């Protein structure tokens, strides 16, 4: 850029060296997740001929869409502000139960049901966010409390039993199993959420401010920005997207169940972190988060294809997350 004094003229040599170091770290940050993703795809296709088939790929995508995928966007926003939201799995369960409840018992239409379910998820996020943003309670503890409350509410509303969507919920089950252009509709919805999330994060004031808050909240506050409003908003978004995940789950299975999303928060956090986001806030991107979610999906898929028993899968999953993290953070720490 011509209007700035060139680096060669700068008398601050150590500074320009740091700049070089940053570029190296940036490179690893940007492509580390992609590397893990590609390695997994290659390994999986060598392992099993069944992996790189259209049916299997669509299956992975559908699982990601109704699992960690959509929630990962909300979680990314929360983590960018240096927070954490442990309540997403429970809110998804509440969303699933409410989907069944509103369309079969209350008899609402698909639009009304969807609206109310998302509103409920957002309300849960609003409560968490209000305590975190305005009363400055730790997000870990506050969202842990919301995790218990939302799960409890889903049990109360459903009386602990699955609510079958039946004919009134046909619109949902059609969406759950329907395709557009050969792509499952929930997967299209997931991509849409990621695209919107990416636009918000990169091209709007909101995205810029939440990322800056995670890097240095006090500097942002001292620039005259109403930090609490933004912090509140990320929890509302996370809650709303968790409710959407609940709707998708009901749509796929045809029941509203309080057992949806047990331990999902861990998968969601793992997806975001494998995506290279920093739990210390301020760093992370949408594309890498999507790759992180896909990595999680592929790992589960490989183990299914390889016939690893369900109970064993959890142990391997944990081990593989550690390896993925080592690749991410281990390579990142090379710069120091």
């Amino acid at each position, binding site marked *: *850029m011509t209007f700035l004094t060139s680096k060669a003229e700068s*008398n601050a040599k150590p*500074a*320009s060296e740091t700049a070089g170091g940053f570029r190296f770290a940036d490179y690893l940050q940007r492509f580390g997740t992609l590397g893990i993703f590609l390695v997994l795809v290659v390994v999986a296709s060598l392992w099993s001929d069944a992996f790189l088939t259209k049916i299997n790929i669509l299956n992975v995508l559908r699982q990601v869409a109704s699992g960690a995928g959509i929630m990962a966007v909300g979680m990314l926003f929360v983590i960018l502000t240096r927070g954490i939201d442990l309540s997403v799995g429970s809110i998804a369960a509440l969303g699933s139960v409410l989907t069944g409840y509103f369309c079969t018992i209350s008899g609402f239409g698909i639009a009304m049901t969807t609206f109310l379910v998302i509103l409920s998820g957002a309300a849960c996020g609003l409560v968490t966010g209000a305590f975190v943003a305005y009363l400055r309670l730790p997000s870990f503890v506050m969202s842990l409390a919301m995790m218990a409350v939302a799960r409890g509410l889903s049990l109360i509303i459903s009386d602990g039993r699955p609510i079958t969507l039946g004919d009134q919920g046909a619109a949902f089950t059609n969406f759950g199993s329907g395709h557009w252009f050969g792509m499952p509709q929930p997967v299209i919805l997931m991509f849409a959420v990621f695209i919107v999330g990416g636009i918000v994060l990169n091209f709007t*004031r909101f995205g810029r401010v939440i990322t*800056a808050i995670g890097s240095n909240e006090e*500097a*942002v506050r001292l620039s005259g920005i109403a930090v609490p409003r933004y912090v509140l908003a990320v929890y509302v978004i996370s809650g709303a997207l968790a409710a959407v995940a609940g709707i998708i789950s009901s749509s796929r299975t045809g029941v509203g169940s309080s057992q949806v999303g047990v331990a999902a928060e861990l998968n969601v956090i793992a997806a975001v972190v494998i995506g290279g986001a920093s739990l210390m806030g301020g760093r992370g991107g949408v594309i890498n988060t999507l790759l992180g979610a896909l990595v999680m999906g592929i790992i589960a898929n490989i183990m299914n294809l390889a016939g690893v028993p369900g109970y064993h899968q959890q142990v391997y999953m944990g081990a593989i997350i550690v390896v993925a993290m080592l690749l991410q953070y281990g390579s990142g720490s090379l710069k120091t």
Partner: protein
Amino acid sequence: MTELAKLVAISKSFGGVRALVEADFDVKAGEVHALLGENGAGKSTLMRVLSGEMIPNDGEIHLGGERVELRDPRDARARGIAVIHQELALAPDLSVAENIFLGELPGVIGWKDLNRRARQLIERLGFDIDPKRIVGSLAVAHQQIVEIAKALSRDVRIIVFDEPTAVLSTQDAERLHEIIKGLRANGVGVVYISHRLEEVFRISDRVTVMKDGQVVGTVATRDVTIDKVIRMMVGRSLAAMFPDKGERKIGAVRLEASKLNAGRMVRDVSFSLRAGEVVGLGGLVGSGRTEVARAIFGADPLDSGTILLDGKPLHARSPRDAVKAGIGLVPEDRKQHGVVLDKPIRINVTMARLAEVVNGLGFLKSAKESGLVGDLARSLKLKAESIDAPVSSLSGGNQQKVVLAKWFHAGGDVIILDEPTRGVDVGAKSEIYGLVNKLAEANKAVLVISSEHQELFGLCDRVLVMGEGELRGELRPESYSEENLLSMAMTGRLTETHEGMPS
């Protein structure tokens, strides 16, 4: 009197900075030896060497006539050297007795005995504090007593007090002085660091003055006057690196603060800033300068007082309110408070007025932003690869320019700069002075807080002087001198030769 400790030709460097240069210092039994100097003169570093917290690069330490090496604070403590730090080193959640005997608690604690011994120690100091009380619940003065009791719990020959009265009321300070006199009578050597010259003259036997890491001299207190000591503390002259102030066109009052109170460090502070004027806020570190700035900016709550901005009352409950009203703050701690270090210059510069680069839907107008930030970068002579480079890749001076650019972009009418040239090299300093001038030329009211007195004199149309949370007075250019500033900060009056000058 026997010599307890003697430091000979102690030198200590941090990187390229020489914090101590062949400093000599000694402590005798039964004396109070005051250690004076401006902030950064090397007093604390020298005491860290004595207490084993820091190992000098060069020099000798003699204790009781014998040459020793102090490897760590435990080593020094075992030899009877204790330090009462300004920031008390107590565990706030433990009881008084636990704190006093921390570090030598037995595996199985006999509470009765422990509490009894703690009570005895505290009573010896003339206080009555329940040993079972949790330390965090005590007043600061009593916490300090606990700290002293802790020092006395073991055989102690030298006690260093690092600005002990800075946090105390006058009455508590008197009681502390009684304790110090008692220690002296018992043959303990007391080192006393304080910025309150009057109390130093009241209780000390000898005074050592430090400056720029060197010992200027050690004198018997009764042989000198306060003014002489102040002259020993100052006397450096900076190169003429200040731009010509020119004829500043000073206009109407922009900001009027009256009777501001905020916490302990801002007490009844009143002053006004006029358009096109650069006003300095001087005084020692910890005198409440930063707190005044933060209170006006809404970063800390104001207990009472009124602020008028262009004649209209301002109630800034948050920095957001202040920024909206047109106030900008360049904070003291650049990396923690001034910039978002790992984010690009572009993001930092536009943060205080995003509305300018955002459309109605909240989308960023990237091209417009690039243009604005680029223009500012050029006019501030920012040295960077591009406006998308992270601020962390810049030198200290250029980081500071990013903070200044932020407030240029925000376009407020009142700018407060807190230590604007800290950690900035000489060349960039001069450029920043030029930018301060530019702010004044643009008819803004500028308040500059600085510990570098020459900086205040070089930049400001007048200098307000603070001491212990109060505004002690105002210096006009005709009475600008370090002696006057220090004297006003410490005693509230000018040095004798200038008595009667306008204030």
